[in-house]
C-alpha cells in the first residue's frame, strides 16, 4: 500500500493527504445531496417515475392518429390547502386515438372578493404513462390570475403517444390547484417559478 509506505516515512503529510481526500469526499457528497434534486427531475423526466408530466411538447413530425386504438383519458381536479377557487374539468373523460391532438377545458372560478393567483400542478396515473402523454398547450405552464368573482375556462391540448404500451388503456390526469397568493405576489422567488414552469 502506497499510503503505508508513506506513513512510515512521513505520517504528518500522509495524514494531511487522507484528511484532504476525506474533506473532498464530504464536500462532494454534500453537493451530491443537492445534485439529487435536478438529477431526480431528469431521472423522472426520462423514466416518468413520479407521474409529473413534462413541459411543452414540440414535435416536428406530423404524426398520424392510430385509429385502431382508443385510450380513455380521465381528468381530475383538486384544490390545495386553503385554495377556495371552484376548479373542475369541463368533461370528466374523453376517448382519444393515440397520435391525435385533443383539446379539453378546465373551469376555474375565484369566488372570493380578492384577486388571486393560482398554479395548477399536474400528475398522471399510471406513472408509466407519463412519458407518453404530451401537452402542446396547457394552463399549467403558467400561473393563472383571476379577479374577484371572475371565472375562466382554461385549455389543455394533448397528444397521447402512439408508443403508449399496449396494456395501458386508461390514463388519469390530475391537477392540483395551489394558491399562489394575491396578485401582487406574482413574482415568486426564482426556484418556485422555474420549477413550476419546468414541470407545467
Amino acid at each position, binding site marked *: 500500500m502506497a499510503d503505508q509506505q508513506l506513513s512510515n516515512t512521513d505520517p504528518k503529510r500522509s*495524514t494531511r493527504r*487522507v484528511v484532504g481526500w*476525506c474533506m473532498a469526499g464530504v464536500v462532494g457528497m*454534500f453537493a451530491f445531496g443537492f445534485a439529487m434534486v435536478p438529477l431526480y427531475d431528469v431521472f423522472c423526466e426520462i423514466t416518468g417515475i413520479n407521474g409529473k408530466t413534462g413541459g411543452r411538447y414540440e414535435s416536428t413530425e406530423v404524426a398520424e392518429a392510430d385509429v385502431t386504438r382508443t385510450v380513455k383519458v380521465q381528468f381530475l381536479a383538486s384544490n390545495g390547502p386553503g385554495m377556495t377557487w371552484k376548479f373542475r374539468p369541463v368533461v370528466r373523460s374523453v376517448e382519444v386515438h393515440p397520435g391525435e391532438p385533443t383539446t379539453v377545458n378546465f373551469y376555474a372560478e375565484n369566488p372570493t372578493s380578492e384577486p388571486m393567483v393560482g398554479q395548477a400542478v399536474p400528475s398522471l396515473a399510471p406513472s408509466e404513462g407519463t412519458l407518453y402523454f404530451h401537452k402542446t398547450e396547457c394552463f399549467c405552464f403558467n400561473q393563472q390570475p383571476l379577479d374577484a368573482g371572475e371565472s375562466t375556462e382554461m385549455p389543455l391540448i394533448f397528444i397521447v403517444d402512439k408508443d403508449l404500451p399496449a396494456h395501458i388503456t386508461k390514463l388519469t390526469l390530475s391537477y392540483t390547484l395551489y394558491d399562489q397568493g394575491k396578485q401582487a405576489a406574482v413574482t415568486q422567488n426564482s426556484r*418556485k417559478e422555474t420549477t413550476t414552469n419546468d414541470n407545467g
Partner: protein
Amino acid sequence: MAVTGVFMSAVADTHAQDHHHGPAKGISRWLLTTNHKDIGSMYLIFSFTMFLLGGAMAMVIRAELFQPGLQIVQPEFFNQMTTMHGLIMVFGAVMPAFVGLANWMLPLMIGAPDMALPRMNNWSFWLLPCAFLILVSTLFMEGGAPNFGWTFYAPLSTTYGPPSTTFFIFAVHIMGVSSIMGAINVIATILNMRAPGMTLMKMPLFVWTWLITAFLLIAVMPVLAGVVTMMLMDINFGTSFFDASGGGDPVLFQHVFWFFGHPEVYIMILPAFGAVSHIIPAFSRKPLFGYASMVYAVGAIALLSFVVWAHHMFTVGIPIVGQLFFMYATMLIAVPTGVKVFNWVATMFRGSLSFEAPMLFAVAFVILFTIGGFSGLMLAIAPADFQYHDTYFVVAHFHYVLVPGAIFGIFASAYFWLPKWTGHMYDETLAKTHFWLSFIGMNLAFFPMHFLGLAGMPRRIPDYALQFADFNMISSIGAFMFGATQLLFLLIVVKCVMGGKKASAKPWDGAEGLEWTVPSPAPYHTFSTPPEVK
C-alpha cells in the same frame, strides 16, 4: 459528572506517576483533553446518558400504549416522544457509543499512540453535547419539540412542522459535523498509524468494520446535512424543494433521506459486527472462522446499502421496474449477512465455550439479530411489504436489529473491555443478571410487536383498537422491565470503576490482539513506540 471523574481517574491516576506527562487536573482536563482514552470515555458516558434519556421517552410511549384510550399524554406530546426517542437513540446513544469504542480501542488495536487528529477529536466530541442541548431544548419551546417522526418526512416537517424545526435542523447539522470529523479521524488513524507489519488483511475486524463505517459516514452524513438544509430553505427562504405547490416533490425528500437513511442503519450495526467477531472467538477459544470472508461480507453489505434505499418507500408509488430492482437488491443483502452469521456459528462450533457476560450478549446478538434479519428479508419482499409497511411489524423488525444488534453489541464490548479500561473485573453475577433481565425484557417488549403488526396495528399511533390491547400490555411490561434493567448496568460500571478484583493485562484467556499486551488499566499513554506485528 461525578461518575466521569471517577471513571477517568481510574484510568489516569494510577499511571500518572508512571509517566512524566499525565493528564491535567480539574475540569480543563475534560474540556481540553486530546487523549483518545479520555475522549473515548466521554463519548461512552455521553452515549449512556442519552440512552437513559431516550429510554425514558420510550417508557412514556409504552406507558401510554399500556391500555387503549388516552391516559397519560396527549397525541401531540406522544408524537414528540416517538420522534425524540428515535433521534436520541440513533444519533445520541448508538452512534456516539461506537465512536467512543473506536476512540478507546482503535489505537490500542493497531498499536498507535493516539488518534491521528487528537485536537479535532476533542472538538468532535464537544460538539455533541451542544447539538443535543439544542435538540432537547426544543421540548420546552412554544409549539413543542419535533413531532414528525425521526424520518421527518416533508411536508409534515416543513410546511406543517412546529416552530422548533429550525432548531432541530441546526442540531442535526452540528451532530453531522461531529460524526464526519469523527469518521475522518478514524480513517486517518487506521490508514496511517498502524504498527509496522500490520497489513490491511491483518487488521482486527473491529478496525475493519470501523474503517468501512467511517467511509459510510463520510458518504452519507453530508447527504443528511443536504436534506435538512433543503428543509431549512423550504421553511425559511421560500424555496420549494419538497412543496408540490411550488413544483417540488415530497417524494424527493424520501429518496434523499433514505439515501442517507439506509447506510445509516449499517453505520449503527457494522461496528457491532466487528466487536462480536472478537468476543465470540475469545470465549470459544478458537480463531474466528473465515476472517477474509468476514471482511468481504462487510464490504459487500456497505456497497449494497447504497442501492436499496427505496425499499423504505414501496408504497409511495414507485413504478414496477423500480420496485423490482429495489426488492432484488435488498434481498441480496441477505447473502453477505448470512455469511457473517454462518461464520460466527462456525467459530463456536467445536470450540471450548464459556459464557461470561460479553459472550452472553454476543450470542444473544447473533440469535436475535438473525431474527431481525429474517423479518428484514420478509420486509424486502415488495408485495408482502404492502401489508407490513408502517405497521408494528416494522417496529418489531428494526428494534430486533437495533436493540440486540447495536445495543447488545455495545454491552458485549463494554463488558469485554471494561477490565482493560478500569483495571478491575466487573461483577460477573450482576452482569449476568443484567443480561438475562435485558434478554427477557427485550423479547417480551418486541416479539409481540410482530403479532401486532401482522394483525394490522399501524406504527406511531397513541391509541389503538381493542383487539391490539393484550399484546400491547405485554409489550409495555417487557419494555418497563428492559428499561429498569439498564440502571443495573450503570451500577455495574460504577462499581467496576470504583474497585473490584484486579484485572490482568489479558483477563480473557482466549482473547487475541494488541490491546491485551498493555497493562490493565491501560496507561494514559500507550504504544509511544510502535509494537512489531508479525
